[in-house]
């Protein structure tokens, strides 16, 4: 078994330093093997460290503890056998498609004639022949990612890492590209021995992978693993695939046992979501055909929103007690029903009440403001408070969410130019 393990992670951990010198653990004790001949999908919410994990395997960042090993030798810088496809394509805009594809070969010092031959062959394989002389900016998103894939494959890599490779594309283009890659893989026309896909799209993972790894957040750990023993090509409509998607949805939204009281601590990472999106989800949940209870994949289909947008919204709704998620279903709470039926001013009032009751950060801000005679405070102390728990850009983001929610719930106001928080004007003194 051991000779056909491509990548082996053994007890890998990664910590980042926050601004005030505190340590924040992003990855903890990750053990993982990528074997020859398999496609593995890495699923997790944002902040679960899956991108960090991918970058450790690519040799872009070092692990703090544990070992990352590629074919028996430890990884501490990018290796020739591992190539990567980027979410934002990462094409060099000033190089032609041909030159972009040749980049990796050029770095290896391969002769121009040989480079040209291999690049031509790869461009043809990936359906780009005739585009060699074009600049990336002339191409559509889907075509650009084809270039990104060709650039990665032309070096004949052993392992292909794909970092959310389809998420910047529209759904149809993404699916086409995905199927094309799977076809290349299954027909054995590329020398690649293993593929690792990082994604937050559940359907994508189920459609592609032989094995799905689900990561938990804070700190990132491998929470569960599912084997997919369905033959490819798979169809989304088939019963097996649907059942599997359902199962993964359930696993993804399951709360880890440790975070039983969800927002109990101040440093809770408030989800990045749009309030109007949250209300939109609540409304479609209340309406037919769901009438208060929805199967998550169905809801995703109905609202035509991708998972990476929906999950934060679910989390926020759960946090505020307006709906709750259980075993892959979203259920409207009585309060949520009241919220949906209420007029705008009452909605905002309810929102504010729930915010103070369930989000300690918001409650804290409100309490401190009430203690001030001027009813106003700079944001910095709160930022410092958050930075004890979070990386500083993350702390800023979380405070930003708290500010937006607080404004909507009319719990407090915020002046962008002075960076001060204050009680709403009509409540002062």
């Amino acid at each position: 078994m051991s000779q056909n393990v491509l990548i082996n992670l053994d007890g890998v951990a990664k910590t980042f330093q926050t601004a005030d010198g505190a340590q924040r653990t992003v990855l903890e004790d990750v053990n993982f093997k990528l074997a020859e001949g398999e496609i593995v999908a890495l699923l997790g919410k944002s902040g679960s460290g899956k991108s960090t994990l991918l970058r450790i395997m690519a040799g872009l960042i070092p692990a703090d503890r544990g070992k990352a090993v590629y074919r028996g030798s430890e990884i501490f810088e990018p290796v020739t056998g591992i190539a990567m496809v980027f979410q934002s394509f990462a094409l060099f805009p000033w190089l032609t498609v041909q030159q972009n594809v040749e980049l990796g070969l050029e770095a290896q010092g391969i002769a121009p004639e040989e480079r040209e031959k291999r690049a031509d062959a790869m461009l043809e394989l990936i359906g780009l022949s005739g585009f060699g002389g074009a600049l990336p900016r002339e191409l559509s998103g889907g075509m650009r990612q084809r270039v990104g894939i060709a650039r990665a494959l032309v070096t004949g890599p052993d392992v292909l890492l794909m970092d959310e490779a389809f998420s910047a594309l529209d759904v149809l283009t993404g699916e086409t590209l995905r199927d094309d890659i799977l076809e290349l893989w299954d027909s054995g026309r590329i020398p690649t021995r293993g593929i690792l896909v990082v994604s937050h799209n559940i359907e994508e993972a189920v459609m592609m992978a032989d094995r799905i790894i689900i990561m938990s957040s804070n700190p990132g750990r491998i929470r569960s693993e599912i084997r997919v023993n369905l033959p490819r090509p798979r169809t989304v409509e088939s019963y097996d695939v649907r059942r599997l998607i359902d199962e993964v949805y359930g696993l993804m939204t399951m709360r880890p046992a440790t975070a039983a009281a969800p927002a109990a601590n101040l440093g809770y990472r408030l989800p990045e979501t749009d309030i109007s999106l949250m209300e939109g989800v609540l409304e479609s949940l209340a309406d037919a055909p769901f009438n208060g209870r929805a199967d998550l994949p169905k809801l995703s289909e109905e609202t035509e929103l991708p998972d990476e947008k929906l999950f934060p919204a679910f989390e926020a709704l759960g946090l505020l007690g307006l709906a709750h998620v259980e075993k892959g279903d979203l259920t409207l709470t009585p309060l949520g029903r009241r919220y949906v039926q209420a007029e705008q001013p009452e909605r905002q009032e309810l929102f504010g009440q729930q915010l103070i009751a369930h989000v300690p950060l918001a409650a804290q801000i409100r309490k401190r403001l009430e203690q001030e005679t001027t009813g106003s405070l700079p944001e910095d102390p709160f930022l410092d408070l958050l930075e004890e728990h979070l990386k500083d850009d993350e702390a800023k983001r979380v405070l930003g969410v708290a500010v937006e929610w607080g404004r909507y719930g009319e719990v407090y106001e915020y002046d962008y130019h002075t960076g001060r928080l204050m009680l709403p004007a009509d409540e002062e003194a």
Partner: protein
Amino acid sequence: MFGVFDTRRAGRTLLNISPNRWDWALLPLLLAVLVAIAFGATQMSRPFVIGQATTITLDPAYLPYYLLRTILRMFTALAFALLFSFAFAAIAAKYRTAEKIMIPSLDILQSVPILGFQAIAIAPFIALFPGNLLGVECAAIFAIFTSQAWNMAFSLYQSIRTVPPELNEASQVFRLSAWQRFWRLELPYAMPGLLWNMMMSMSGGWFFLVAAEAVSVAGQDIKLPGIGAYIAVAIEAENGTAIAWAIAAMLAGILLYDQLFFRPLLAWADKFRFEESQGDTAQGSWLLDWGRRSRLIRMMSERFWATMQRALSWQVKKEKVAPASGTFLAHPGWKHVQNGILIAAFLIAVYQLVVFVHDDVGWEEVLHVGMLGGITLARVMLLIGLASLIWVPIAVWIGLRPQYAQRVQAVAQFLAAFPVNLMFPLVVYLLVTFRLTPNIWLSPLMVFGTQWYILFNVVAGASAIPNELRLAADNLGLNGWLKWKRIYLPAIFPSYITGAITASGGSWNASIVAEYVTWGNTTLMADGLGSYIKQMTDAGDFHRIALGIGVMCIFVMLLNRFFWRRLYLLAENRS
């Protein structure tokens, strides 16, 4: 980046292609440029002894020759500035410790007026080539270099630091070596900003041309053949017609290198724009179009790029088998050592400074110079304010009309290059005839060359205001002052600040020329730091030159730190 012309398609040998009509059009041009360069270069290294008078005639027939010499000098300086920028940016972006020292030094260098460098550099350069004019030539080139290099180096450094992270990662994953990275990623990414700064640098070079070419060393006046020296002689001889000729020659020169050098380069560099959002200001160049059509030129450029491309694989990254041994540098103790060295160097410098002031110039002189600095500061700020009041509304008006904006940009760029010395006859005439006080009426000269930075930055800012915003304002019925207050002024604020910072820095430098005006035997003088430095230079008093320049550096840096930088951050936050 090496794909100006598609390298793969055409045939391979020079012999089997017949020239087309574009070849016939381009060939004479190319040959003429080559011959001119060769001729100018041979003229540079003629025998010369200190004390020997170099004659500059005011006969306009000599002007083309002078122009050639000047432009050659400027391009040589530009080439060195470019090399300097490459080295500087590559080192500063790579090593944290070096960066800590290099970036502040650049800040200081940028605020040292050109005369300061000249005073230091002239003697060593002459000693380097005894009995040859090349020494003086080098000194002049060095002086021009100092008015060009700093902003280019800074722009390149900043671009390298802000290379998009995903491209950075891609270059790592595909294992590009540092050499390949520089040519494939960092330089192309920095190209648009670097080119823009090169153009600004050329303007800056013209501005101080007189000082660079009419070198005064140890009471001797050495004048190198060139437009700057021509202007200097014309001023001495009170020859107004010659001044007019000089203006014409300069205009011709700027037009020439703009059309033959910068336009083609800009048009070519268009593909390095990272975002498509940068507007539709695609640059066109007739010369580049010709070159692309000419078979011969295409052939040669293919050869050239193919060679360059081969050069890319000079350094290929080796597969490493052990972790990088950077442990020594990462050791916490090393940091303390570094800081210790820095602090020690700082203390020694302060001690030296105190000794210098105490022994050589005296504290009273320092106070006096400080006061003069205050006067010049007041002048700079007041005039920037006045220039803003005049130019901001005009610039916004122009910026909102794209049909004028491009043309005005070109004119403003020419005006920014206009050496202020060329205004001397007019100024002296006006001041003498109307008996005006130099202390007030010489001041406008300081912003004469620098106000254009405000103009063209604001024009650029105003033309970048989204059309929808303007439509929305009209739709809401915003009018008059309210429209300015809510739309135009906030929208142009960041670009205005950028322009004002450049203008302020330039005005300090210009004060040396502007506060001390001569026309033949007439000398008009305003009190201020600039005229102090100029007088001390004429007197050859090195200690006082150093003092004056030091004080000017301090003023400029304090002003930048505590005033412009804050405004800049404010502007950045708002946008």
